[in-house]
């Protein structure tokens, strides 16, 4: 199945240029994120390290601090971008974004509970985060299904925003309960990929593999679903089953990303928006393009977060919000709301 998917997407040559441009951008941002940082190690110091030379200090900073951060950034950006693209295809709504729809909120709330209860193991946190994401996603989906909100982009987003606001207040309640946990939660909730230990990355890997398999399974049915539920059924797909698989995949991806980096809003909105603009409406092409664009955007945001206010750092979540909110406004202003 994966092979067919691969062939069918590469067959369309109109799609190759944007993909190679996107891959080029990942490489550029990855190198940039290795070279620039908030600390005293400058780009000139860091450059020799890439060729196996450089001072002891520079080598330590680049390989022990910036490299893990780069990997975390790639994994997080990729997960959020794919999750956003899936959710938007499923709801046929360009504004459906994990951060806006309560998925990240649910995940953040669950992790805050876990931190409060004294959880520290990486595997635990990932699992808790994914369960929370699943709960948040299911709640909003249930609301949209039962009320026919999916047809109306704004109502869907309002429902999601309300759930997110609610979960954030409940997280604040938890922060009042315990000062030590509050400090930990406050740092984590603004979103950051700094200092994530490699053990966390290893903990999320299995679920990402499962999510990847799910994405491969649902990609073609989702493309059929975009023609309407009836058409998809006529083509032999079962919309109910696709929906469940997509929601599970989104929960796995967003849960993993949130466990790694905290709740990051708007990455799942911006990346699929750019990908769709470049690749057209086919969800399979969009997903392929999201693979490089997601990491590129996240690494760019992270490098900016480090450089703008050096020698201290801005929270990554703030940068993604500042990049993403204007895109939201652009989507809204683009004449009629594009429906998927």
């Amino acid at each position, binding site marked *: 199945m994966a092979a067919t998917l691969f062939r069918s997407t590469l067959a369309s040559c109109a799609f190759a240029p944007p993909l190679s441009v996107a891959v080029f951008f990942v490489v550029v941002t990855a190198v940039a994120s290795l070279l620039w940082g908030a600390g005293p190690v400058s780009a000139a110091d860091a450059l020799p390290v890439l060729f196996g030379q450089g001072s002891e200090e520079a080598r330590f900073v680049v390989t022990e601090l910036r490299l893990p951060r780069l990997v975390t950034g790639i994994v997080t950006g990729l997960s959020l971008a794919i999750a956003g693209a899936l959710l938007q295809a499923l709801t046929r709504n360009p*504004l459906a974004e994990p951060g*806006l729809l309560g998925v990240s909120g649910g995940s953040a709330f669950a992790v805050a509970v876990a931190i409060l209860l004294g959880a520290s193991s990486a595997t635990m946190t990932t699992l808790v985060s994914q369960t929370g994401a699943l709960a948040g996603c299911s*709640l*909003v989906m*249930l*609301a949209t299904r*039962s*009320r026919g909100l999916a047809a109306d*982009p*704004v*109502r869907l*987003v*309002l*429902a999601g*925003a*309300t*759930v997110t*606001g*609610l979960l954030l*207040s*409940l997280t*604040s*309640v938890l922060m*009042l309960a315990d000062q030590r946990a509050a400090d930990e939660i406050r740092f984590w909730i*603004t979103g950051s990929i700094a200092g994530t230990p490699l053990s966390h990355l290893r903990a999320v890997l299995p679920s990402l593999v499962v999510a990847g398999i799910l994405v491969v399974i649902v990609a073609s049915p989702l493309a059929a679903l975009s023609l309407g539920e009836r058409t998809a059924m006529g083509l032999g797909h079962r919309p109910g089953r696709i929906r469940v698989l997509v929601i599970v995949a989104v929960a796995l991806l967003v849960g993993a990303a949130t466990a790694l980096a905290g709740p990051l*809003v*708007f990455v799942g909105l911006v990346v699929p928006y750019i990908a769709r603009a470049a690749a057209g409406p086919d969800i399979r092409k969009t997903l392929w393009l999201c693979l490089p664009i997601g990491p590129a955007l996240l690494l760019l945001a992270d490098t900016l977060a480090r450089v703008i*206010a050096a020698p*201290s750092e*801005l*929270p990554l*979540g*703030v940068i993604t*919000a*500042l990049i*993403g*909110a*204007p895109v*939201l*406004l652009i*989507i*809204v*202003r683009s004449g009629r*709301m594009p429906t998927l």
Partner: protein
Amino acid sequence: MKTFAMTRQRNLYANLALTLALVIAATASLALGTVAIPPGAIIDVLAGGGDTIHQFVIRELRLPRVLAGVLTGAAFALAGCMMQTIARNRLATPGIIGIDNAATAFAVASVVGAGLSIAPSAMALSGAAAATALAFGLAGANGTRGYRFIIAGLGIGAIAGAITQVMLSRVAIDAANAAFPWTVGSLNARSQDAVQILAIGLVIGYGLAIALGPALKTLQFSDPVAINLGTRLKRIRTLSLACAVLLTGLAVSVAGPVGMVALLAPELARALSRPGKVPLTASALAGAAFMVTADLAGRLVLSPLELPVGLVTAIAGSPYLIWILVKPSSRSLS
């Protein structure tokens, strides 16, 4: 004629019941706490007598707090009711579309002293006005109607929230703690000046809302119907929005963002009042009662630790909110 009279009476009874609830909540709020004061003694103190401890506790501590609660609750609820009506969506409260967030961002800016020396309340009001103007401008021709305004507000709210986070993460821990009440909503941090300004603003806002009442009622129908009924849509929407911004900005300047009141109090008022009317007075009363009760609960439940009122309302409101979202059928304003 009889049904008309009955429905008029229904509104009257609804308002009376809500007033009674407010009086009970306010009395309980004056009586209960670390020092319990019997209702008789409260009347003595309010009449100018009573013993000195009771006088101090009521006059200096509890009465200002109850007053602040009544005013902010009424202001939030009135603003929420107007926003819900003009957006024809019961989830479209000032909090969701970013007015709260922007007001908070500006207030936090003045608390943590980002080179500004203006009082937090003035800053909160200008934040609310700026966010709304921006959302209006970005929404373009559609004005307050339709999705553009709401989504633009969401985006602006997200930016304001992010800016608040930046400010809180970049200042010393003491300043961040001083600004914390502004981020969750608490009656503890109120300033007396802000309460006075809010009282004046509430009188103006309430008067404007009542004057707009009949026109708002026609907004419940579709636009062509409202226009045929002689409603000047654009003017009514602009005025209502200005009124909601004024009330929300002033209320945030006293108590921080307590968005849930704006969502729930109008719901309660709508359930009690005559169908088809925009329950402005009932919303204000319900909001005041809700706020005072929530604040009282926040003081008592984990005493001596105090739970901020914004969190109490969020916890109390969440089951209802989830129910609104999940339940299959919906009423006209959904």
